[in-house]
């Protein structure tokens, strides 16, 4: 689409609207509703080395203009992905970005190595919202140094573009973005979910099967836009914005704040056509405002 093409960290996309990890599976179920070839890119559900069962239900609870989820990285592991999921995605022209997570930097590196051989995979997104079992369960995303180390290890194992996906549950998003950049990341994406909780006053228990869950949806958009803006001031590598994007206008806010592309997450649940509609809405905005290319908007918010 004219004015919407991009090359992000070396990944060619026909538009800057991707689907976010965990909200689109591995494309197969969603393909019954969505024309996959119209997407900018497909980011897979997080893949781990070994299969994971995930957390006990309930895994979803709705909150005001948002939702908490505690899926907990349920997936069948990297082998199943490569053998049974990737062939389906390989049939489409849309680039596939594999989202990975591990309990140690070594696991991430191993995953990256395996994916490096798969020509259908065009990029790797590193989900660092995962506890670092080596460091005693401390989350990678809370620790700039551990994150940097992780990125460096992964960098050695793959020539694929590396996108580091940041968590918003931290004090200084700019600092961790810089660390990721310095360690060799090709792009960063943000934000993952905000850590939240909901308690059932009848049962006195969590309304999820786990005590806490991840908050997503329109409720978190203002936080996401702010963090994209902060990160954009700090790094030169492209930023992929994510968090509560429901409309083309929302996407435009992220571009103006400094995002080079965006991901649509929770919106997929509300409207299966969300990514395609959002792409159209961006196109219409460009036409109405006589803007040749959406890139003219990146980071162009008039903010001090």
């Amino acid at each position, binding site marked *: 689409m004219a004015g919407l093409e991009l090359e992000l960290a070396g990944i060619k996309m026909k538009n800057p609207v991707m689907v976010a990890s965990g909200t689109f599976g591995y494309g197969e179920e969603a393909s019954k509703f969505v024309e996959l070839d119209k997407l900018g890119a497909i980011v897979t559900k997080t893949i781990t080395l070994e299969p994971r069962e995930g957390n006990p239900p*309930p*895994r979803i609870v709705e909150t005001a*203009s948002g939702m908490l989820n505690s899926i907990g990285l*349920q997936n069948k592991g990297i082998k199943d992905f490569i053998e049974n999921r990737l062939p389906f995605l390989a049939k489409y022209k849309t680039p596939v970005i594999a989202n990975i997570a591990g309990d140690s930097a070594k696991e991430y590196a191993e995953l990256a190595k395996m994916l490096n051989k798969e020509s259908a995979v065009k990029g790797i997104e590193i989900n660092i919202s995962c506890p670092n079992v080596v460091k005693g369960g401390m989350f990678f995303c809370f620790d700039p140094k551990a994150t940097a180390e992780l990125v460096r290890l992964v960098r050695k194992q793959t020539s694929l573009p590396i996108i580091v996906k940041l968590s918003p549950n931290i004090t200084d998003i700019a600092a961790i973005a810089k660390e990721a950049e310095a360690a060799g990341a090709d792009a960063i994406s943000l934000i993952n979910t905000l850590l939240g909780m909901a308690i059932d006053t009848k049962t006195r228990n969590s309304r999820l099967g786990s005590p806490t869950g991840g908050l997503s949806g329109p409720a978190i958009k203002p936080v996401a836009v702010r963090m994209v803006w902060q990160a954009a001031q700090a790094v030169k590598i492209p930023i992929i914005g994510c968090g509560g994007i429901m409309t083309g206008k929302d996407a435009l806010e992220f571009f103006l704040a400094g995002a080079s592309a965006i991901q649509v997450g929770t919106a*997929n649940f509300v409207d299966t056509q969300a990514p395609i509609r959002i792409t159209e809405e961006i196109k219409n905005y460009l036409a109405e405002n006589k803007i040749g290319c959406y890139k003219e908007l990146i980071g162009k918010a008039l903010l001090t």
Partner: protein
Amino acid sequence: MSIQEKCRVLDHKEVAPKHYKLTLFSSYISSRAEPGQFVNVRCSQEYDPLLRRPFSIHRVSKDYFELLYEVVGKGTEQLSKQTIGSEIDVLGPLGSGFKIDGKKQIAILAGGGMGVAPLLLLAETLKDKVKAIYVLIGCNCKSRLLCEQDFKNVTDQVLVSTDDGSYGKKGFVSDTLLEVLNDTIGARNLSQSIIYACGPKPMLKAIADISFQKKIDCQVSMEERMACGIGTCLGCVVKTKDGYKKVCDDGPVFDSKEIIWQD
């Protein structure tokens, strides 16, 4: 295949206090819907409530289908305000419904509370396919009884029980089930029989237990909180003997022996 479609409201009425029947136009959905399948409905245009809400397909006609629902919260509250002529965003038909086994000539449909919703379409579908249909309806009290007459139009064997005894037998659906199995159907016919159940989890568990003891086939329609409704988010899982399975996609109807019944 399923579709996301704006369906026009053809009819919408309160059939009992806080219970509504909603008739939606869609030749696509009505021509494909199978008993036990559901639709995922957008109840609000704003972001609160945000997610769609799942409702069983209650009945279908050539060009339209019906939902039967109870107002229990924000989503159903907003849905209940939709007027005739307006359009509602619907995703469907979704999920894997009741499997009809040609060999089972005696069908026992057990519905608790709103669980009757998918059973009417099932009963109407089974009508010409089996020899006998027993419909067991349970609810708290008489005022919450739904669809009795609709079921009576399909079969003579409609057995109502209420928790408080205000109508029909006092007791649970599972009590009625035991009676029907023991007294009416009888041991000889159990292998020809099948139970289809929908309702609250404790009821389903009780029925699954009975079916297990009696060695009679049993399919249960499960409920779980959903986000996507189409199998992408992994939000709606139930524990089965093969690990977590998705209610929206692998279910909502499961063989009762598959489910690991927890409390």
